[in-house]
């Protein structure tokens, strides 16, 4: 190899002349030869300076990249160590790992339904009704079922708090807070102590209140935002005393409902629904009841009406008066009324005829928000019809609720400094009381404001002391709302935090010594009270300890009280109705179906449960008619301004089919500001429109309404199609998704539903059906009994660990409910007929989802179940695409982490999960499994007892919770079973049967009990 440039040049002089690439090379141009020794063209690297290169080498870059990736990976840990699982050293006697225990107790609300709490390894995981309770009979409402979520609310208060000098709350020990409060109570002088609570339904708590009142000159102020006070006052005026009775809905053949949602949100709706549904039995067609509903806005009861008339609520007195005259023989006023309010004369004629022909078995029932005058008139109608035989006079009121006069008196006392202390006894009066009374400002003039509450609320935020209390599942108690029995309440779990039972706190103050508190004081107090007041009257020869144990075990004790029966009507209280100005707007306030009066605002299950009528979630709204919307110039989601009683309020509208014109219906229980992460800022607080001044009804009043500014997105889980679009009008009926008939039609032609037989097209060609020779699971849903209440949805959520996803995800259709209640309208927009239909996985024999899964994550079991294998699923979503019923739900996120910044990932929240059901993560498809965990449990029990499993051994969660028993579940192949009557019923049909996917959910067609001329 040449070492110098000259030697290179010399060598090139000697290159082979036969091979050359250019003339310069051939002729040995010196310039060319010199250039050929350089790799690059001249001046290419003239500017190259190694010193200017980055000192960041490739090696360094890769090293840093790897380190950053490793660091990022450590921060993405979604699966924190949950600690160790170790076996018991000393196993509690009651606990057998893997086997559930049940505790009978009482729901925390004013109705006091009996509940049965299922626990696993000491923690409650599900609340159902107590089948032994005479009122609930194994069923319980959505709120009671969802209340278990409140037990594990991560935002529960954990320690007592005292307002410090700097305006912040500081933790204080129980002993110190008791000492300070006892000191305050003892130094009250002649001033009063006010205890503001909810309705008192516990006899033992009432005894305690009496003792507290005596010791500390206290007055008790029980209140409820929605109550029966107007109805009871009218009853007392009509009959001289007592309380308005329960109605025997099961014995009523004709029910005329005036602005009352007795199936949805009024009274004990579970009992009402159960009794009403007994008159909707397709196997007892001659005893079908008929429901007339006259209301201002479509309610759950209105959805299930045979005849429905829309009438603004302030016209109900006029209507009731005209109806009374019609029942007594004169139709003229009713005819003029129907013309004035554009009601169907034919329907009203049928109504009067039905009432007269069914005397003694017909009932007219007015809603609790209507005025006292309406109730009086309705009592007169029932008296004229002889309907008093349908009254069940068992109601017991331990402590009357306060009147508006009592409340005004309290606030005046507070303002004038005559109240030493106000105790909010698990109540929230700052949120509930009408703003014009000035309760909030009066609180500032009270020396000590003490709030006993589970979570922070508007009243606690203005208190000097906030005392955290036990959840009802951690509390002792009793409940008496009817004559004839008393219910017991027991704690199914020891307090999770440093909380105390509210009655125990009060009892400690009665005892007067902060140091003498122990966890058992209220338990002993309760037992002593039962020993003296309950045990003695009913005991035979058992000792009290045995009696007490039995009472806790059963959850209820039947007593020997009888209810009064004689009634003497006083008709002198009848008043003439005020005529309604049709041009004015009327506002009707209702309790929310889910959050009731706002107490459940922080409950994600209830906020996400679609409204039974509008299917809106996570918000309230102003329901108006189409005509009213056009008049105001608004459409859905536009905001309107409402002015009443000097207050102004803005809320988005929703055009509700069937709403009366110029009637604005708003549900309360929303718009809370201090309700925790879930409930704060959700919806609009319409309580500002209420007035504490006396009027005919605090819930129905005139207002001025105008179009507001802007719009607000309301999220609905189901749209309804435009009524006048021919493509979609009555689509559900045209496609056979909803099939209906009338009672008359069914009586004449029992097979009317299947008169057109046709061969179904099969996409499976000549494939023969699989033979299910053994047990095959199936479900039947009776649409005559299904009210659309949604109890089944909450039960399913609770049983199957279904996460809350939040409003933004529901807006994208990503709610995770395995079971949904579809609601369809037919007919005209002003007078629609509504139908509800629970829709869940149909567990099709020819499931279109099973064939398309690329990883065989969805399979079919030998007993007819469409199964889902979560750990195989890779999330292609092809199965959901293929499902004609759209019942598959996909986990687009790990919603436990996604919703409210990991709210559902708190340690305490994890206690709610049912250990028998997998908690699904992101990217996995899920759907109704027919409660396979319950099927497995029944199968294991059958094996253990050496018998064959039968269909009636299993009750799915939805079936168990349905108050009307509309859902049946069992063995398709067992022709002798109760289930078979519905599986093979003449009215049974399958949804989208023409697709030939062979679903295993039979729907029993709905029958409307209309008159034959309309059949």
């Amino acid at each position, binding site marked *: 190899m040449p070492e110098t440039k000259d030697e290179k040049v010399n060598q090139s002089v000697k290159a082979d002349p036969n091979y050359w690439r250019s003339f310069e090379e051939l002729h040995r141009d010196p310039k060319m030869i010199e250039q050929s020794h350089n790799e690059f063209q001249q001046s290419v690297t003239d500017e190259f300076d190694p010193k200017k290169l980055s000192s960041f080498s490739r090696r360094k870059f890769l090293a840093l990249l790897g*380190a950053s990736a490793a660091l990022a990976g450590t921060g993405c840990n979604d699966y924190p160590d949950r600690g160790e699982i170790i076996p018991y050293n000393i196993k*509690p006697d009651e606990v057998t790992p893997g086997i559930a225990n049940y*505790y009978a107790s009482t729901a925390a609300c004013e109705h006091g339904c009996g509940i049965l709490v299922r626990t696993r390894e000491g923690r409650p995981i599900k609340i159902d009704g107590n*089948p032994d309770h005479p009122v609930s009979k*194994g069923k319980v409402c959505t709120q009671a079922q969802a209340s278990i979520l409140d037990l594990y609310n*991560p935002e529960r208060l954990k320690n007592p708090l005292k307002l410090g000098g700097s305006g912040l709350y500081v933790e204080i020990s129980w002993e110190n807070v008791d000492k300070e409060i006892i000191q305050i109570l003892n130094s009250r002088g002649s001033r009063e102590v006010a205890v503001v609570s909810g309705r008192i339904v516990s006899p033992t708590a009432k005894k305690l209140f009496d003792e507290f009142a005596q010791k500390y000159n206290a007055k008790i102020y029980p209140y409820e935002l929605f109550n029966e006070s107007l109805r009871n006052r009218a009853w007392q005026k009509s009959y001289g005393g007592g309380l308005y009775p329960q109605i025997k809905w099961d014995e009523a053949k004709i029910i005329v409902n005036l602005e009352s949602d007795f199936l949805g949100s009024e009274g004990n709706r579970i009992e009402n629904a159960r009794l009403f549904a007994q008159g909707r039995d397709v196997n007892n067609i001659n005893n079908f009841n008929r429901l007339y509903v006259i209301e201002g806005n479509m309610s759950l009861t209105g959805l299930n009406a045979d005849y429905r008339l829309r009438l603004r609520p302030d016209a109900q007195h006029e209507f009731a008066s005209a109806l009374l005259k019609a029942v007594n023989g004169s139709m003229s006023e009713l005819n003029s009324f129907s013309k004035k309010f554009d009601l169907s004369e034919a329907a009203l004629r049928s109504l009067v005829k039905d009432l007269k022909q069914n005397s003694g078995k017909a009932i007219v029932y007015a809603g609790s928000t209507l005025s006292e005058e309406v109730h009086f008139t309705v009592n007169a109608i029932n008296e004229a019809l002889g309907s008093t035989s349908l009254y069940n006079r068992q109601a017991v009121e331990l402590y009357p609720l306060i009147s508006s006069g009592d409340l005004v008196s309290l606030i005046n006392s507070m303002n004038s400094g005559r109240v030493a202390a106000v105790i909010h006894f698990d109540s929230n009066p700052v949120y509930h009381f009408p703003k014009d009374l000035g309760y909030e400002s009066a609180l500032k003039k009270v020396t000590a404001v003490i709030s006993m509450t589970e979570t922070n609320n508007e009243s606690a935020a203005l208190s000097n002391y906030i005392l955290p209390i036990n959840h009802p599942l951690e509390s002792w108690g009793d409940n008496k709302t009817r004559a004839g029995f008393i219910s017991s309440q*027991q704690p199914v779990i020891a307090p999770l935090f440093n909380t105390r039972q509210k009655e125990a706190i009060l009892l400690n103050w009665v005892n007067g010594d902060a140091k003498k508190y122990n966890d058992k004081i209220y338990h002993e107090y309760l037992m002593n009270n039962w020993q003296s007041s309950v045990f003695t009257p009913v005991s035979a020869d058992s000792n009290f300890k045995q009696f007490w144990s039995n009472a806790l*075990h059963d959850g209820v004790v*039947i007593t020997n009280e009888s209810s009064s029966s004689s009634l003497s009507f006083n008709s002198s209280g009848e008043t003439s109705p005020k005529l309604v100005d049709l041009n004015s707007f009327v506002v009707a306030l209702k309790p929310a179906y889910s959050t009731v009066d706002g107490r459940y605002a922080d409950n994600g299950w209830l906020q996400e449960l679609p409204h039974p009528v509008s299917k809106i979630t996570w918000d309230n709204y102003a329901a108006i008619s189409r005509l009213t919307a056009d008049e105001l110039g608004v459409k859905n989601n536009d905001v309107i301004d409402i002015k009443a009683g000097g207050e102004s309020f803005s809320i988005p509208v929703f055009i509700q089919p069937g709403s009366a014109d110029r009637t604005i219906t708003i549900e309360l229980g929303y718009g809370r500001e201090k309700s925790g992460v879930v409930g704060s800022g959700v919806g609009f607080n319409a309580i500002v429109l209420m007035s504490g001044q006396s009027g005919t009804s605090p819930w129905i009043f005139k207002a001025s309404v105008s179009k507001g500014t802007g719009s607000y997105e309301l999220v609905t889980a189901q749209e309804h199609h435009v009524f006048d679009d021919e493509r979609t009008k009555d689509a559900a009926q045209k496609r056979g998704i909803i099939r209906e008939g009338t009672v008359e039609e069914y009586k004449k032609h029992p097979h009317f539903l299947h008169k057109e037989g046709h061969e179904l097209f099969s996409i499976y060609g000549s494939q023969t059906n699989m033979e299910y020779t053994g047990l095959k699971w199936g479900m039947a849903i009776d649409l005559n009994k299904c009210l659309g209440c949604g109890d089944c949805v909450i039960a399913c959520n609770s049983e199957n660990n279904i996460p809350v996803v939040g409003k933004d995800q529901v807006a994208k259709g990503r709610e995770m409910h395995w079971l949904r209640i579809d609601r369809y309208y037919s007919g005209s927009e002003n007078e629609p007929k509504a139908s509800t239909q629970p829709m869940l996985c149909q567990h099709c024999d020819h499931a279109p989802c099973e064939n398309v899964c690329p990883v065989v994550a969805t399979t079919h079991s030998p007993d007819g179940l469409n199964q889902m294998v979560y750990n195989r699923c890779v999330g292609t979503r092809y199965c959901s695409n293929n499902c004609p019923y759209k019942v598959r739900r996909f986990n687009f996120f790990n919603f436990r982490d996604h919703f409210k910044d990991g709210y559902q990932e708190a340690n305490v929240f994890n206690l709610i999960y049912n250990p028998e059901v997998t908690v699904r993560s992101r990217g996995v498809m899920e759907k109704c499994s027919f409660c396979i965990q319950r099927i497995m449990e029944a199968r294991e029990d059958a094996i253990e007892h050496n018998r064959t499993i039968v269909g009636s051994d299993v009750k799915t969660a939805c079936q168990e919770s349905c108050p009307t028993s509309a859902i049946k579940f069992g063995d398709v192949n067992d022709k002798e079973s109760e289930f078979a009557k519905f599986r093979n019923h003449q009215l049974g049909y399958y949804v989208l049967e023409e697709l030939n996917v062979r679903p295993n959910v039979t729907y029993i067609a709905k029958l409307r009990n209309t008159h034959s001329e309309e059949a």
Partner: protein
Amino acid sequence: MFDKLTNQNKIKRSSFFASTGLAATGFFVAISLPFKLFGKNGISKNEKVTVQINPDAVSRKKIGETNA
């Protein structure tokens, strides 16, 4: 430092061990730091909760089972 023998830039041994040690320390601090403790809602995810049965409560093994 530039190694004339191999014509490469090499890290000094002391710097290497210093930066490796620092990286390892950072790694273990990061995995033990509860990042989500300072989430918007202030809900503590790691709070310990003890489940205890109330010994005075009376349970039953089946749903429909009374003493009547």
